């Protein structure tokens, strides 16, 4: 509750102001979901220590597979999350993920320099993201509709460029180590996710561009009125989303060794789910990079735990669905308690 402050304030009140400031900043961080996440990890570790044969959570293979797979959702989710905070959606990230990686695979197979092929793939992904932005912002239609449409178009582009068969991708040498190697015990994709998450944090939460992203999503009219270039900011977010989708696709292609055109159909919705679990609003203007990362971890975690416990695979989607709904309720309860 807001309390009526006295008309004249003394300097001593500064301490009070900075104390309440810390409290508000903590509330606006991803602290709730982080505490929940750490709690779940502690529980999982305890169970794994008590009964390692039935619940092989701490098995090194389990951890390695987790660190290999979480970034394949988490990296595209970082882009999708920034775009959601800017108030827009990209339902075509899965199609982009496949198209960009298949471009890299096919160009490499056709003898192009493998580094150049990766560069072309990253540019293709970014351009696709920007095209989504141009269509949405120039034609002034909802990005949900735009990207529902372009989802089909980019899928068709993959079939046109490559066909329906899968494409093998086997980078060599240093590129292979960078995409598919291990840094000590940590798989390369996890390192990339860490690097990109730190970059996104710096951009979104410390840079003025990030302030404009929040403003553009939270109140586009107000942002415009104070001199924020909303269209340019949203274009940047669309571009970042496309770039992240391409990075995720290329890492997936390298770790699996081939790209199947229909393998990422649910990526966009999973990425949005990770963001929602991480505390982002569908209406934009709110969220943290840490929240997105934890959201991606949690979506993987629930499936991992169920698989380790021997739950039949076809039940997994029900638990993932329940997690998304539970997270939403969790945030609702928290936000009504804090006024």
């Amino acid at each position: 509750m807001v309390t009526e402050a006295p008309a004249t304030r003394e300097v001593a009140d500064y301490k009070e102001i900075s104390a309440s400031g810390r409290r508000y900043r903590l509330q606006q961080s991803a602290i709730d979901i982080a505490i929940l996440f750490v709690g779940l990890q502690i529980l999982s570790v305890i169970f794994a220590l008590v009964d390692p044969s039935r619940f092989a959570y701490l098995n090194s293979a389990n951890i390695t597979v987790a660190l290999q797979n979480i970034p394949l959702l988490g990296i595209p989710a970082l882009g999708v999350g920034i775009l959601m905070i800017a108030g827009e959606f990209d339902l075509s990230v899965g199609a982009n993920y496949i198209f960009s990686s298949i471009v890299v695979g096919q160009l490499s197979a056709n003898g192009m320099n493998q580094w150049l092929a990766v560069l072309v793939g990253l540019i293709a992904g970014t351009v696709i993201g920007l095209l989504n932005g141009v269509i949405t912002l120039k034609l002034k239609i909802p990005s949900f509709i735009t990207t529902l449409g372009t989802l089909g178009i980019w899928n068709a582009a993959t079939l046109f460029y490559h066909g329906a068969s899968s494409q093998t991708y086997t980078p060599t040498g240093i590129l292979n180590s960078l995409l598919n190697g291990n840094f000590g015990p940590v798989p390369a994709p996890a390192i990339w996710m860490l690097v990109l998450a730190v970059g996104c944090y710096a951009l979104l939460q410390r840079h003025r561009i990030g302030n404009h992203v929040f403003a553009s999503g939270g109140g586009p009219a107000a942002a415009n009125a104070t001199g924020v270039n909303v269209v340019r900011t949203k274009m940047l977010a669309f571009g970042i989303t496309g770039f992240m989708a391409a990075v995720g696709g290329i890492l997936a292609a390298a770790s699996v060794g081939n790209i199947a055109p229909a393998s990422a159909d649910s990526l966009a919705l999973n990425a949005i789910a990770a963001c929602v679990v991480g505390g982002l609003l569908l209406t934009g203007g709110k969220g943290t990079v840490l929240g997105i990362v934890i959201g991606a971890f949690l979506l993987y975690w629930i499936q991992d735990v169920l698989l380790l416990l021997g739950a039949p695979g076809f039940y997994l989607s029900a638990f993932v669905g329940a997690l998304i709904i539970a997270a939403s309720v969790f945030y609702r309860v928290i936000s009504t308690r804090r006024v």
Partner: protein
Amino acid sequence: MTSIEINEVTNVSSKAEMTAGASGFANTVGDAATPLLELKEICKRYGQIDVLTNVSFTVNKAEVIGLLGDNGAGKSTLVKTISGVVQPDQGELVWDGKPVQFNSREVSANYGVETIFQDSALVDSMSIARNIFMGREIRNRFGFMDLRQMREIAAEVLKTIVAIEGIDSPDKLVGSLSGGQKQAVAIARAVHFKRSLLVLDEPTSALAVRATEALFDYLRHLRDQGLSSILVTHDLYDAYRICDRFVVMSRGRTILKAAKSETSIEELTEKVSRG
């Protein structure tokens, strides 16, 4: 509010102006005798409707103008013209003796016009400090924000100008504030980025009595420093207390232009209500 507190704000503000690279104060604009802003025969039509017809008046340096009129008189359109949101069909704006075209809000802001709109232009999901500096973040040469300094300045501005509104921290989300508190934040922002001309569109409509008094004290203080303000309001008593000159509008035309000494609150009331 004591003068000591006001001086504190001024110091902090000027420090921030320098850091943020913002352009100068009113007393750096031209010579004192040239009017700050002249509106000459401004006309604006929306479809078949004449919203503004040959509106002319001047804003001198260091004065507070009351722009009065009933609903539909064209006040808001005129405010939007001055702030660059709406372009006139005919007529001319002259800034400090030179004809200007305010094609966008950015252009008018560069000349030194700061506007507080009725809907106050705040983002609910962002903190007060981030709202105050939205679009004008204090940043280093790589574009990274100095969040600490933004918070400190916001706290200082809030403490001295709008402390009575009961905002305890610049980190609070604007969405958790009451209507009056939001308006106070918008006013704090305008006051902090004070330039040459403040345009306040119904700033006191959601403010408590004490907050209104604090705002008026501030406007007087800014006037003493050489800044001009245009106060758009329904409240004639408020206007009469603070303004030096009045422009009364009716159906898109100016029907009275008078200095405070030449008119009375009765005449203003009569003009506004009869049109």
